[in-house]
């Protein structure tokens, strides 16, 4: 199998397998999670096939026709970066879906759960391998939508629904900004193919010199920040913790939240090496890193602590990708990529441990835990390894990438000079100290100290191997990468960094490389972190006090006010646009008709009434027309519904007689039949309502309605008079075309029918769709009313 086919298959396989998952569930019952894990495993194998090629510095490219008439293709591009993400997504996917087998209760709707997980995995793979920016956007929003479905998995919990809505509004809304940024890129370069732009140095130079450079960059960064919960957009991630814990481990720590980081890495060659890139990306990253690290102190929910730590860790990567200068555009790229990979291992592990703890203790409140090391020694060891890796303790993988973070911060500071030479490393150390403090809190609060038996169940035990194995595997990976980093670095990190920087990158990562400035910074971090941990309770209490005193000082309250305000505004808008009674709609429709037809008719025809009028009406037609006028008057005057309805149908049948005189059998049959059915519908309705018109109509309303309806009648009269003189000059009749072509092109002599099903078949298709929807609409209206009773 060639690599392009393998990647295409890896993207679409999860979607196909999700579609047939309900069938698989019938066979496997509640073991269907293994089926999903198997799909993830196949995806991993497919993606891994591309690994040897990207290690050699090659890329996988190819495209399939999608909308050939518009020149839109489904194109995939696989380089080191995409393959690394592909491996993380499918690899963590296997672990998560296996773990879920035990975590999710058998009573849950498992089919829905795994379907969304698989669809998410496919969207994520599709996104990282997308070459076309528009295609990337589509997959990007698909990940937002599947994330929405998974956060809101427990539909009956208000907080789940709130969290799901929030994440969708923020991430998908950010996606729209990103799309606007892509459109600007498309305007500048004339192509949406990111791979083409990356391989074309003149295009990159063109973008960097273009006046739309800054708007495009800002828009794309907004999209990335919203997805990766950076800056003010962080608010969705803590609420997303309402999802089942495996989902949080998969989407909200290891993969989806890294989509923004992926995007920043992907567009790195296009935008980096500029001041704007450093200020926007690094600035955002450093501020978020400090703020989120600080805010983590207040959290008492173990998943909340992890959520804030995820925000802060993603901000590390943001900051590192942002480190740039004209000579060295990618100072922190290798470090950031390495940290990204390590973070996926230890954070997913931590979430899975949190899931085990919450599963066994039936609470997520860290203040109610403690001393669990005796009940669950293996979980304790796994959790400690992962948390220490996050804290940056040697010899774990988090230590290595944290050191690289410090090195790149030092280098960036050195290049900038001035006060920033010390400020940037200082900020990095402070961020590290926060991380150290909350990592220790995680271990200490859950596993060490006194067992708070009053809050905990009496008998707690280790979970089954199904739940223990995935985090254990990740913990082993954390240690292995920490002690023997060279394999991972050579096969995964180097190709990924080369893919970002578009040049060969060689890294030398080892556990001990002498007593360097970065090591000194690590030691300071540990001391400062320990000092912060000593004051942990005091800081958290202070944050609580500030929050209680100034409830409006948060992005969350801003979001709430915005969303509540939006629903208020839309309600007000709907009250104006959808008042309820039919009369206002009719008034609006008729007024628009007057505006659109009376004005042009007068302008085009020049004169209101044609000079010569042909009033040669035979007697029988005159009688018919007189009857129509009478019946119409009857509909307006009669007091009872039944009488009015009979008058209306009389008008209809009389009009069908007119059609017969005019030799239009098609129209006549249609008119008769439709009239019959309309009468039946009317009768079905009026059985259930009062039999007379109850409404009081004031004189002014009556006058207004009379005025409007007579104006409309006069307009129609004028239009008809003009039409009877032949087609007005600037227009040509369409009928000749159909008269000439209906037999040779469509093989039918009934022109009306040929137009309906052939020439304008698309319109008819739309109309029958409307008919179906109307049927369903009536059904829903009536059924929802009887439900609410």
């Amino acid at each position: 199998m060639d690599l392009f086919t393998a990647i295409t298959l890896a993207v679409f396989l999860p979607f196909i397998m999700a579609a047939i998952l309900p069938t698989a569930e019938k066979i496997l019952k509640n073991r269907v999670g293994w089926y999903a894990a198997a799909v993830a495993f196949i995806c991993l194998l497919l993606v891994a096939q591309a690994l040897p090629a990207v290690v050699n510095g090659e890329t996988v490219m190819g495209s399939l026709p999608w909308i050939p008439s518009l020149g839109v293709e489904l194109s995939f591009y696989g380089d080191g970066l995409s393959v690394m993400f592909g491996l993380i997504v499918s690899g963590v996917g296997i672990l998560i879906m296996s773990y879920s087998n035990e975590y999710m209760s058998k009573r849950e709707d498992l089919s829905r759960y795994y379907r969304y997980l698989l669809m998410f995995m496919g969207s994520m793979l599709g996104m990282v391998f997308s070459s076309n920016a528009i295609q990337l956007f589509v997959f990007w929003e698909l990940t937002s939508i599947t994330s929405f479905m998974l956060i809101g998995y427990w539909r009956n919990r208000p907080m789940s629904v709130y969290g799901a809505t929030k994440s969708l509004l923020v991430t998908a809304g950010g996606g729209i900004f990103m799309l606007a940024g892509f459109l600007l890129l498309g305007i500048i370069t004339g192509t949406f193919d990111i791979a083409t732009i990356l391989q074309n140095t003149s295009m990159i130079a063109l973008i960097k010199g273009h006046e739309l450079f800054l708007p495009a960059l800002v828009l794309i960064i907004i999209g990335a920040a919203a997805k990766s919960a950076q800056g003010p957009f962080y608010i969705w991630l803590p609420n997303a913790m309402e999802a089942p814990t495996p989902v949080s481990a998969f989407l909200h720590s290891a993969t989806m939240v890294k989509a923004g980081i992926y995007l920043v890495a992907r567009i790195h060659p296009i935008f980096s090496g500029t001041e704007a890139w450093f200020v926007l990306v690094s600035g955002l990253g450093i501020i978020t890193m400090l703020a989120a690290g600080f805010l983590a102190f207040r959290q008492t929910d173990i998943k909340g602590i992890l959520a804030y730590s995820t925000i802060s860790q993603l901000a590390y990567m943001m900051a590192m990708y942002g480190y740039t200068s004209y000579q060295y555009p990618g100072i922190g790229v290798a470090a950031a990529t390495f940290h990204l990979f390590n973070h996926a291992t230890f954070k997913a592990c931590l979430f899975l441990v949190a899931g085990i703890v919450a599963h066994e203790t039936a609470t997520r409140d860290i203040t109610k835990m403690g001393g669990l090391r005796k009940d669950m020694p293996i979980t304790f060891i796994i959790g400690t390894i992962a948390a220490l890796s996050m804290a940056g303790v040697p010899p774990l993988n988090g230590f290595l990438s944290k050191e690289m973070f410090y090195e790149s911060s030092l280098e960036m500071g050195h290049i900038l000079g001035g006060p920033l030479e010390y400020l940037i490393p200082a900020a990095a150390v402070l961020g590290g100290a926060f991380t150290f403090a909350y990592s220790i809190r995680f271990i200490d609060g859950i596993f060490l100290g006194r067992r708070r038996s009053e809050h905990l169940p009496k008998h707690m035990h280790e979970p089954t191997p199904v739940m223990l194995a995935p985090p254990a595997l990740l913990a082993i990976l954390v240690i292995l990468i920490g002690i023997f980093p060279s394999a991972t670095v050579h096969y995964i990190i180097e190709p990924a960094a080369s893919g970002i920087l578009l040049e060969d990158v060689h890294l030398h990562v080892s556990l001990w490389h002498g007593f360097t400035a970065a090591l000194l910074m690590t030691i300071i971090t540990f001391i400062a972190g320990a000092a912060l941990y000593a004051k942990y309770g005091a800081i958290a209490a202070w944050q609580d006090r500030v929050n209680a005193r100034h409830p409006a000082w948060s992005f969350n309250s801003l979001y709430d006010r915005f969303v509540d305000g939006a629903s208020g505004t839309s309600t007000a808008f709907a009250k104006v646009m959808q008042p309820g009674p039919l009369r206002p709609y009719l008034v609006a429709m008729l007024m628009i008709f007057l505006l659109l037809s009376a004005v042009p008719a007068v302008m085009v025809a020049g004169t209101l009434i044609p000079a010569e009028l042909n009033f040669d009406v035979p007697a029988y037609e005159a009688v018919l027309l007189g009857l129509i006028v009478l019946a119409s008057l009857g509909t307006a005057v009669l007091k009872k519904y039944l009488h009015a309805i009979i008058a209306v149908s009389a008008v209809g049948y009389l009009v069908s007689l007119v059609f017969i005189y005019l030799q239009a059998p098609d129209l006549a049959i249609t008119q008769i039949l439709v009239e019959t059915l309309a009468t039946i519908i009317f009768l079905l309705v009026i059985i259930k309502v009062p039999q007379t018109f109850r409404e009081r109509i004031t004189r002014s309303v009556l006058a207004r309605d009379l005025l409007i309806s007579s104006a409309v009648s006069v307009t129609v009269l004028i239009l008809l008079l003009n039409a009877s003189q032949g087609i007005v000059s600037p227009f040509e009749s369409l009928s000749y075309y159909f008269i000439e072509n209906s037999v040779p092109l469509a093989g039918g002599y009934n022109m009306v029918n040929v137009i309906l099903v052939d020439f304008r078949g698309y319109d008819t298709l739309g109309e029958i769709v409307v008919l179906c929807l109307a049927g369903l609409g009536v059904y829903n209206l009536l059924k929802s009313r009887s439900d609410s009773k």
Partner: protein
Amino acid sequence: MTTLIAKTVSKACVPIIILFSISLLLAGHNYPGGGFIGGVMFASAISLLYIVFGLKYIDSLYRYRWDKWFAAGLMLATLTGIGAMVFRYNFLRSTYLTVSLPLLGDIKLISTTLFDLGVYLVVTGSLLFVFKTMGEDE
């Protein structure tokens, strides 16, 4: 309206109306008629049954799911369009084939007849679906 006369007359009429509606559908390409008119006529035949014999009685004989009809019709009409794409033509592109049959002479088989059948089913299904929903509503 459930008089004996109405019942007897509609028993005789409904089959004829249905046959006529089918002939309207099939003849539609060359003579007055077509899927829409045929569908409406079919719907009026069935609604005649509903009115004369009552919803409950007809349902007790056979409980019809009209929503399936319009779903099938929409599917058929869409598939007719996609069928043209299989042969690498544009969506909804039509074609016809003239075949000579003994006794019947030359007959034109037109692909849009299938599309018209879809229209017929949608019109019938959705109208009767609405009728039934309204009629059942308490």
